[in-house]
C-alpha cells in the first residue's frame, strides 16, 4: 500500500527524539525570552535523562537478552540503538552549542554570569574556599578505589567527580577516588557581587579544592561525570503479592542497574575515561563528552531566578471564563448546566472546589477519586482527608506506578488511609491513568452524582502550565457508567459493557477504531465525514491503520500531536488526506480531544488516553463524550485554533522530519496559545462586566 520501501510507520524513539528537537528549537529561538529559553534547554536535558533510563535502558535490555524482533518500522533493537545513539550525540552537541554560543553569553550580558575557576578574583577564591570547607567538605566523602574491592556504587543521575592521584612511589597503578556531590547541595553557588548574579557551579568548587581531600598527595586530574542507569525494571506483580512492598523494592532496585550513559567533561584524559568506561561497563557509543556543565537541567533554576522578569514570558494568568460563581454552591451551579474548562487559560479552582465543598457538604455521602500525580501539598488530598474525617465514604485510587512519583504517592496514600479513606492501590498489571472524580450527593429528589473528568492530573500547579480540559457535570448517564467504572477499578465488579463512556483496556481501542472506520463508511456513502484529533502521542499500529483506511476512503484527518507520531502522513495512496502538526510553546500541550463529524452529528470526546499501545492495553483510561453544546463548541473552536497556528506549529513531513508552518498568502500570523489566551481573557472580561451589570453593589450615599 505504501510507496517504495518506506515502512508504514515511523520508529517511536526517533519520533520522540524529533519531539525533543522541537523543544530544543524553542531554546534556540531568539524570539523566546531568554530565561524561558534556559528552561526549554533544561527540559530537553531532563527529557533525555528519562529517555535514556526508560527507552534506551529497555532497548539495551532487549539487546542483551538477544532479542531481534523488529518494531513496526522494521528496526531491530540494536538497529534502533544505533540510530538513537547517532541522533542523541547530535542533539547533545546542539544543546551545548545553544548553551555555549547563545544562552550563556546572553545571560552574561544581562548580568547572570557563570564564573569559571580561572576567572575568579582572589577575594572570590577565598570566599569559595571558606564555602567549601564549611558547606562541602563536611558532607562529601571521597571513595577510594582499591583493586580488590572493585568500583564503588555510583548513584544514578547524580554528579560525581573522579580524582586521579599520582601513583605511590614504586608503583605504576593509578590511584583513583570518586567524590559524590551530595544531592543536598545546591548546584549553583552564588558569589557575593552586587547588582548582578554571578555564580560558580558546585562541581567546579569541588574540583577547585579537591586536593584538600588528599592531603600530602599529588592530584593529577579532577573531572566531573554523571551516569544514567537502566530504570525499566518491570515490576513482576505476581511475584510480589503485596503491591506496596513491591513498589518499594523497585525504588531500591533503581540504584543498581546497568549503566546506559556516561556524561563527562570533554577535557578528561584518555586514561581516566578508559578507566571509567571499563569499570562501569559503558560502551564507547554511550559516552557523551561535553563542552560545558553536565546536566543542563540545572538551567531550570536559573530560568526561575527572581528579579529578571523582563527576560520571561509576560504572565497569562488563568481567568474565570465559565462564569462559575465562587460564592454560590458549585453543586447548584453544576445542576444548572455542565461546565467545560480550558486550562491553563481558565482557573483550576472549580475542580478543587468540587472536592473541597463535597468534603464539607452535609448532603454528600461519598467521594471517589483517582489520583495519579498530585502536587506536594495537594489541596485535593487535603479535602479528601477532611471528607473522610467528616464521615463521608471516601474511596481513592492511588496509582503507585506513576513513574518517579512513587515515593510521594505512597506517602499520600498512607496519610489518606490513616484518615479512614478506602485506598485502592491500582489494579494489578495496569496503570490507572484516567482522571475522574465522582461525588455522590443525596438531594431531596434523589441521589445525584457530580463528576469531574479531566485530561490532566489533579495537580493545581501543573494545571497552570499544562493545556488540559476539565468537564464538570452531573449528567445521569455519565453518572451511572462512572459509578460502574469506579466499582470496576475498585475490584467490586466485573468490567461491564459501556454505552456512553469507554475505558481502556476494555473497549477503548475497539471503540476508537469503530469511530474512525465509521467516518470511512460515511465518506464512501457520500455523507459528511472528517476527523480531528489532538493528543500527545500516536503509536498504536491498529489505530494508525484505521486512520490510513479513513484517508484512503477520502476522509480528511487533521491531527495535532505534540509528541511521538508513528503515523506517516501525506503519502499518496496511504495517507495523503492526513496532516499532522505539533505545537510546542510556553504551555505544555497535554489535552486529548477527538472529533468525528459522523454525518453531521459531530461526536466530540475528551480523553485521558494517548493512542499508544501501552495506554490502550495496559492502562486504565477513559473516553468521555461531550454532549453539551456549549462545551462542544468551545472544544471545536480550540481545535480549529491549533490548526490555524503559523507561529509555533510544525508540520510532520512524509520523511519524518518537521518543518515550521509559516504565515503567508491567506494564512495570517497566529500563535494558537496566544489566541486561546486572548479569547479566554476577552470572554472573562465580558462575563465579569455582565456580572457587574447584574449585581450593582449597594453603596451608602455620602452625607451632604
Amino acid at each position: 500500500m505504501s510507496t517504495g520501501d518506506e515502512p508504514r510507520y515511523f520508529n517511536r524513539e526517533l519520533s520522540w527524539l524529533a519531539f525533543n528537537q522541537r523543544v530544543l528549537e524553542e531554546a534556540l529561538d531568539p524570539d523566546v525570552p531568554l530565561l524561558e529559553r534556559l528552561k526549554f534547554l533544561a527540559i530537553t536535558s531532563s527529557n533525555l535523562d528519562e529517555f535514556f533510563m526508560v527507552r534506551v535502558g529497555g532497548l539495551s535490555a532487549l539487546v542483551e537478552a538477544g532479542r531481534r524482533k523488529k518494531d513496526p518500522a522494521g528496526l531491530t533493537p540494536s538497529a534502533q540503538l544505533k540510530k538513537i545513539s547517532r541522533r542523541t550525540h547530535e542533539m547533545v552537541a546542539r544543546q551545548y552549542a545553544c548553551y555555549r554560543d547563545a544562552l550563556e553569553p546572553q545571560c552574561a550580558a544581562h548580568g547572570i554570569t557563570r564564573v569559571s575557576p580561572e576567572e575568579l578574583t582572589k577575594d572570590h577564591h577565598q570566599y569559595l574556599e571558606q564555602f567549601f570547607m564549611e558547606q562541602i567538605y563536611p558532607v562529601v566523602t571521597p571513595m577510594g578505589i582499591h583493586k580488590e574491592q572493585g568500583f564503588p556504587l555510583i548513584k544514578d543521575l547524580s554528579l560525581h567527580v573522579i580524582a586521579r592521584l599520582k601513583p605511590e612511589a614504586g608503583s605504576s597503578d593509578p590511584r583513583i577516588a570518586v567524590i559524590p556531590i551530595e544531592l543536598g547541595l545546591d548546584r549553583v553557588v552564588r558569589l557575593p557581587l552586587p547588582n548582578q548574579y554571578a555564580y560558580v557551579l558546585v562541581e567546579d568548587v569541588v574540583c577547585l579544592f579537591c586536593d584538600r581531600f588528599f592531603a600530602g598527595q599529588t592530584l593529577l586530574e579532577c573531572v566531573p561525570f554523571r551516569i544514567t542507569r537502566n530504570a525499566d525494571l518491570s515490576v513482576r506483580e505476581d511475584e510480589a503479592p503485596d503491591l506496596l512492598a513491591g513498589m518499594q523494592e523497585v525504588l531500591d532496585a533503581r540504584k543498581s542497574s546497568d549503566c546506559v550513559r556516561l556524561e563527562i567533561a570533554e577535557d578528561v584524559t584518555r586514561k581516566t575515561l578508559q578507566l571509567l568506561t571499563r569499570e562501569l561497563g559503558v560502551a564507547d557509543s554511550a559516552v557523551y563528552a561535553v563542552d560545558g556543565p553536565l546536566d543542563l537541567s540545572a538551567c531550570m533554576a536559573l530560568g526561575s531566578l527572581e528579579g529578571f522578569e523582563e527576560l520571561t514570558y509576560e504572565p497569562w494568568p488563568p481567568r474565570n471564563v465559565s462564569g462559575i460563581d465562587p460564592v454560590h454552591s458549585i453543586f447548584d451551579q453544576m445542576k444548572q448546566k455542565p461546565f467545560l474548562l480550558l486550562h491553563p487559560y481558565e482557573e483550576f479552582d472549580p475542580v478543587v472546589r468540587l472536592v473541597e465543598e463535597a468534603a464539607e457538604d452535609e448532603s454528600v455521602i461519598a467521594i471517589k477519586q483517582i489520583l495519579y500525580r498530585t502536587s506536594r501539598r495537594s489541596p485535593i488530598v487535603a479535602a479528601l482527608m477532611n471528607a473522610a474525617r467528616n464521615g463521608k465514604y471516601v474511596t481513592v485510587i492511588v496509582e503507585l506506578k506513576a513513574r518517579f512519583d512513587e515515593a510521594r504517592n505512597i506517602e499520600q496514600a498512607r496519610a489518606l488511609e490513616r484518615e479512614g479513606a478506602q485506598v485502592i492501590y491500582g489494579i494489578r498489571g495496569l496503570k490507572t491513568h484516567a482522571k475522574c472524580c465522582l461525588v455522590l450527593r443525596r438531594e431531596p429528589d434523589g441521589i445525584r452524582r457530580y463528576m469531574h473528568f479531566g485530561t490532566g492530573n489533579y495537580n493545581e500547579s501543573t494545571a497552570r502550565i499544562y493545556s488540559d480540559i476539565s468537564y464538570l457535570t452531573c449528567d445521569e448517564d455519565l453518572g451511572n457508567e462512572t459509578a460502574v467504572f469506579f466499582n470496576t477499578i475498585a475490584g467490586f465488579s466485573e468490567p461491564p459493557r459501556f454505552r456512553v463512556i469507554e475505558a481502556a483496556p476494555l473497549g477503548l481501542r475497539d471503540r476508537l477504531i469503530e469511530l474512525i472506520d465509521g467516518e470511512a463508511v460515511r465518506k464512501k456513502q457520500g455523507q459528511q465525514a472528517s476527523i480531528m484529533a489532538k493528543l500527545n502521542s500516536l503509536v498504536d499500529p491498529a489505530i494508525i491503520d484505521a486512520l490510513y483506511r479513513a484517508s484512503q476512503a477520502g476522509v480528511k484527518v487533521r491531527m495535532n500531536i505534540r509528541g511521538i507520531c508513528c503515523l506517516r502522513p501525506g503519502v499518496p495512496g496511504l495517507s495523503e488526506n492526513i496532516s499532522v502538526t505539533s505545537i510546542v510553546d510556553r504551555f505544555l500541550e497535554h489535552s486529548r480531544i477527538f472529533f468525528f463529524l459522523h454525518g453531521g452529528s459531530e461526536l466530540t470526546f475528551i480523553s485521558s488516553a494517548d493512542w499508544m499501545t501501552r495506554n490502550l492495553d495496559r492502562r486504565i483510561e477513559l473516553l468521555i463524550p461531550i454532549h453539551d453544546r456549549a462545551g462542544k463548541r468551545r472544544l471545536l473552536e480550540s481545535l480549529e485554533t491549533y490548526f490555524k497556528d503559523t507561529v509555533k506549529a510544525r508540520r510532520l513531513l512524509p520523511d519524518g522530519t518537521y518543518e515550521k508552518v509559516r504565515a503567508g498568502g491567506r494564512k495570517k500570523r497566529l500563535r494558537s496559545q496566544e489566541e486561546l489566551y486572548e479569547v479566554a481573557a476577552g470572554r472573562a472580561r465580558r462575563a465579569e462586566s455582565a456580572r457587574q451589570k447584574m449585581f450593582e453593589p449597594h453603596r451608602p450615599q455620602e452625607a451632604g
Partner: protein
Amino acid sequence: MTESIRIGADTTPVGIRTVAVIDIGSSSIRMAIAQIDGVGCVHPLESLQRAVKLGEDTWTNGSIGNETTEECVRVLLQFRRVLLEYGVTDGDRVRAIATSAVREASNKAAFLDRIYSATGIDVDAIDEMEVNRLTYLAVMPLLTEVAALRKKPALIVEVGAGSTELLLIEDAVMTYAGTYRLGALRLYEMLETHHTSPGSALHVLISSIQRMLDEMRRTVHSVDDPQLLVLGGDIRFALSQMDKEADRGEPREVSVKELEKFSDEILNYSVDELLQKYHLPVPDAETLGPALLSIVMLAKTFGAKSLYVATQTLRDGLLIEMSEARTWEERIQEQVIKGAMDLGRKYRFDESHAVHVASLCASLFDQLQAVHRLDPRYRTMLYVAALLHEVGNVISTRSHHKHSMYLVMNSELFGLSSREMKIVALIARYHRRAMPRATHEVYGTLTRDHRIIVNKLAAILRVADALDRAHQQRISTVQCVLEDESVILTSQELDNPTLERMALKDKDDLFQQVYGMRIELRSHMKVNF
C-alpha cells in the same frame, strides 16, 4: 365519650427511596441499585457483577465449598460498602435472593447462615416458581408495550446458568410457567467433568438440549406459532455483536438464521479464544456457546423464524416488586387468584361461599391495615387461603381444615413461591378448630415472623368465615371501627345478626389472642347490646 378512629389503608406518600437487589446466581453475584420515585418508577443507579463458582461447586460436588462461600462473603461485603456509599443502610431496602446453585446445594442452610452472620445480608434462596414470578414481573411492561408480543402467544425464555425458564403468555395471561434443570453452566460443567473430546462435545451438547426440548414440547404442545422473547446475558451479548446499534431499552428482533450463524461461530472458539477475542468475563465465556445453541435449537423446535431479545433481568423483577407501583403486581395477583379459583373448582369447593369469604377477608385486611401492619402482598395470600379454606371437604368433612392444608401445600400456583404456599395452606388450616401451636407439624417449621403472619391472617379468616356462617352471603360489606380495645364491625344489610354474632363468639378467640382486641358485630339498623 368514645373517640372513634376510622381505620383505613396507610396512604402516606412515599418519597424517593434508594433500594438494592442482590441476585446470587450460579456463576456470579450481581447487584442493582436504583431509586424508586414517589410514583413508583424505578430509576437505575448502577449495577455490579462479580464472578463466583457456586454452580461449579454445587453441580460437581453437590455442595458449596468453603472457599467459594468466603469469596461470596468478600463480594457481598464489598457490595455492602457500595450500599453504604448510597446511604442504603436499612435492611428493608435490600432484597437479596439466591437461585438454583444455592437452592440445590446440600449445605444451603449453612451457606446462607454464614452469609448472614458475616455480612448481615439476609439472602432468600427462592424456588423456581418464585423465579418465574419475578421474570414475569420484569417482562410484563414489555408485553403491553411491544406490539409484536401482543399479537401472538408470547413464549418467554431464559437460558440461565443453572436452569432454563419458560413462560407462556396468551392474551396477557400466563398460561404456563416451567423451569427445566438444564442451564448453560450445567452443560459446560458436564462437558468439563467428562473430559469430552471437542468433536463429541458438540454432540453431547445437542443431545442434552434436545432432551430438554422434547420435555418442553410435551408440556407446552398446545402453543401455536409463538413469538419468542429471549432474556439473559448470553443473548444480550450476541445481540450487541450482531447489531452494533442495539441499545438498551426497546427489545430488538433478531432472525434465528443469523443467530444460528453467530452461535456456530462462537461454538468454534475455545473459552480462551473467546476471552481473547471479546474480553468477556470468564463465566460469561464459558456459558456463551451452550446458551446460544440452546436458544437456537429452542427457536427451531417452536418453529420461530425470529425472536425478540430483551434486556430485562430477574433484578428488574425484584426492583419492580420493591417499587410502590403495584400495577404489575396487581396483574400477578389476578393470575394468582385465577389459579386459585381453578384449583378450588378442581376440588369442587362451594364457590359462592369461598368468594364471599375471600372478599370479606380482603375488606377486613384493608380496613385493619393499622392493626396488622402487613405488606399488601399478604392480602393476596389471605385471599387465596380464603378461597381454598374448605377444599379439604373433597376428601372428608371431618378435619377438612387439615385436608385443605395438605391439598394447598401440594399444589402449585403461579405467582406464589412454595414458602408462600405453605403460609396460605396454614392460614386455611387454622380457619377453624385448634389455635396454632408451635408443636403442630408444618406450622412448627416456620420462622417466628412467618408464624405471626399466619396467626394474624388466620384470625381475619376466622372472622370472615363467621360472618358467612350461613353460607348464604347475608353480609357482603362491613365497616370496621376501632373503639377502645375493640374492633366494631357494622353492617347495614343485616337486621338480625344473631347467627353471625354467635359464630363470631365461637371464632374470635384467635383474633383476641393475636391482636389483643375484642371483636364485636353490630347491626347498623338498631343498636342492641
